């Protein structure tokens, strides 16, 4: 009886898409190796039995090379062989490379079903495979599938009970490749085609000059599109809803509660010039939802939409190649650009994605640089809000300062952190046309994740600030930190509250700066300082989970030091 089904395959063959199809559990999938860093589990009904499905991180062989591969292999070995089945997901466009793992699985005596995934794409590439012949040679069921559309998935489940371990000769590595060579000759037929536009683009994207041009172009266009969509969502949808529909309700509630009561202070907050001001009132029903839904959410939507597109087309691994040289100076290799870009959305998935980096040193450097030098969308949205009223110059200034910190700190860490940094060794996927369904699912998952993670924190943050303000408890520690903040950073002592709040949740912290009516220079310095400090309490937690207390303390000390130096430098340099 099968109790567990393992999904095993090379990186970027679509295991996660098959997983979603089988279990109905939605998971994030992209067009680059290493999207899945965690082991995902779900359930499906086989006959009338509940079966657990385990989606393992991609691996090229059963001899593990990284931490995540090691875990995958040990899970396979733990399970009793008569209670499990392996679905080996294979990229039909690249059968040869994929068969190496397939043969290893068979040699290990595992019951395997092969899913020849992306069979539609293989057709476009002029690759045709003789499934029956392959089935005969391997002695196990082989089913062509296209997980994105769902083709073949049903058949896969119908035939999963047919599989049993086959006795195979144990090959040496070389013999295995020879065997694969002869299998390929028998089952794979290539039709020659002329170069398509896509192939020309693929080629251009990995050449120095044209590649850099494409890379820079993609980044610039992406930023513009994110801003365009974000601004329009705010101005055309979010703001009108809040001002025209929500505010009248609150005005009624406000007069019902009476301006002087504690409850009024809690839910509505202070009236600014006798009116509710969504940015400044600091109430649970005013500022909290406004920050979350009208200032941050629109940018979350637009950022993750664009990121999803870029991911699914397959641009990220190409950026990894182009930036490999630069990142070497920071003690990283090109692939580290992927966690960094994910960190621009939210630092938490960014730090999780550092699991794809092999050495501990690399992971520490990458996670520290992400926490300090990479602002998340929530923070960026609020910085647009805070600095946008002065000029775009200040907004770009924040990015420039952060980039400079990122480079300088990276070079310093590269020279001081012990350990080794391995080299880039990654596969470049073909360009793919993103599927709308996948894009939509991914966007939905990420927005849901953001709302679940952020909404309670924003509410809690606003509540804390609100209560502390009401009882005037802030004066206590503003007094202690005021000399540093005023003397070194040139900020009013009230800004201390926001900076401290910043360790908890960034969007609330920037929101608290708005009522202070800071000058352009002060706003700029405060924004930079907030960007440097860890984005939120969730980042602290993942950092701790992923790298341990010692590294968290190290990174936090670095952060305080960087903030101190940058804040004072900017204060004395700008006039």
């Amino acid at each position, binding site marked *: 009886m099968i109790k567990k089904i393992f999904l095993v395959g090379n990186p970027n063959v679509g295991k996660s898409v098959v997983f979603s199809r089988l279990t109905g559990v939605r998971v994030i999938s992209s067009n680059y190796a290493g999207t899945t860093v965690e082991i995902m589990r779900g359930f499906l009904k086989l006959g009338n039995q509940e079966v657990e499905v385990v989606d393992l991180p991609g691996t*090229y*062989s059963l*001899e593990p*090379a990284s931490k995540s591969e090691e875990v995958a292999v040990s899970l396979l070995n733990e399970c009793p062989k008569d209670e499990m089945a392996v679905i080996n997901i294979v990229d039909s*466009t*690249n059968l*040869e*490379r994929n068969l*190496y*793992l397939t043969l290893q699985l068979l040699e290990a005596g595992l019951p395997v079903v092969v899913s020849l995934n992306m069979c539609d794409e293989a057709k476009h590439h002029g*690759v045709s495979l003789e499934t029956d012949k392959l089935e005969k040679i391997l002695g196990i069921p082989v089913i062509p599938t296209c997980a994105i559309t769902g083709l073949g998935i049903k058949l896969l489940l119908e035939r999963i009970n047919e599989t049993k371990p086959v006795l195979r000769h144990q090959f040496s*590595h*070389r013999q295995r*490749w020879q065997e694969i060579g002869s299998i390929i000759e028998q089952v794979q037929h290539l039709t020659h085609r002329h170069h398509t536009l896509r192939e020309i683009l*693929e*080629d251009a994207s*990995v*050449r*120095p000059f044209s*590649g850099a041009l494409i890379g820079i172009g993609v980044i610039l266009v992406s930023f513009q599109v994110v801003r365009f969509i974000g601004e329009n969502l705010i101005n055309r949808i979010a703001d009108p809803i809040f001002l025209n529909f929500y505010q009248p309700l609150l005005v009624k509630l406000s007069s019902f509660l009476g301006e002087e009561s504690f409850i009024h202070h809690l839910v509505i907050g202070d009236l600014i010039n006798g009116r509710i001001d969504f940015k400044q009132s600091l109430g649970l029903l005013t500022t909290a939802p406004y920050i979350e839904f009208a200032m941050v959410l629109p940018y979350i939507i637009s950022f993750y939409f664009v990121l999803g597109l870029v991911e699914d087309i397959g641009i990220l*691994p190409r950026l*990894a*190649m*182009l930036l*490999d*040289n630069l990142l*070497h100076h920071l003690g990283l*290799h*090109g692939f580290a650009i992927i966690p960094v870009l994910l960190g621009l959305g939210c630092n938490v998935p960014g730090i999780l994605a550092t699991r794809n980096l092999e050495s501990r040193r690399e992971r520490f450097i990458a996670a520290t640089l992400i926490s300090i030098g990479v602002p998340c969308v929530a923070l960026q949205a609020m910085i647009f809000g805070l600095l946008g009223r002065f000029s775009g110059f200040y907004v770009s200034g924040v990015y420039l300062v952060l980039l400079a910190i990122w480079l300088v700190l990276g070079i310093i860490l590269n020279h001081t952190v012990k350990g080794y940094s391995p*080299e*880039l*060794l*990654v*596969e*470049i996927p073909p360009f793919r046309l993103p599927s709308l369904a996948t894009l939509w699912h991914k966007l939905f998952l990420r927005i849901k994740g953001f709302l679940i993670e952020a909404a309670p924190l924003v509410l809690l943050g606003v509540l804390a600030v609100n209560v502390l303000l009401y009882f005037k408890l802030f004066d206590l520690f503003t007094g202690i930190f005021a000399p540093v903040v005023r003397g070194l950073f040139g900020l009013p002592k009230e800004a201390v509250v926001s900076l401290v709040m910043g360790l908890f949740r960034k969007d609330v912290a920037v929101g608290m700066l708005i009522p202070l009516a800071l000058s352009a220079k002060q706003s700029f310095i405060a924004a930079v300082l907030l960007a440097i400090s860890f984005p939120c309490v969730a980042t602290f937690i993942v950092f701790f989970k992923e790298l341990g207390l010692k590294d968290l303390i190290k990174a936090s000390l670095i952060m305080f030091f960087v903030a101190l130096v940058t804040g004072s430098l900017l204060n004395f340099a700008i006039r």
Partner: protein
Amino acid sequence: MKAKQRGIICEISGGLGLQNKFMSMGIYKGREIIKISHIGLRGPVAIKVGRSVLVLGHSVANKIVVEGQ
């Protein structure tokens, strides 16, 4: 090796871990590869092995000795 040149791998140096990884990705002695491009003087190298395109960091690429055709 120049861009767009074909060659046959005649030697791979490096540790056992790297050798295994190469092996599982289809890079082994006697295998034909095509170099696609490289970035900068000491930058990464893109090669084509079978139907896949791989990018190797400079010093990893240095470990593969190729006989040109």
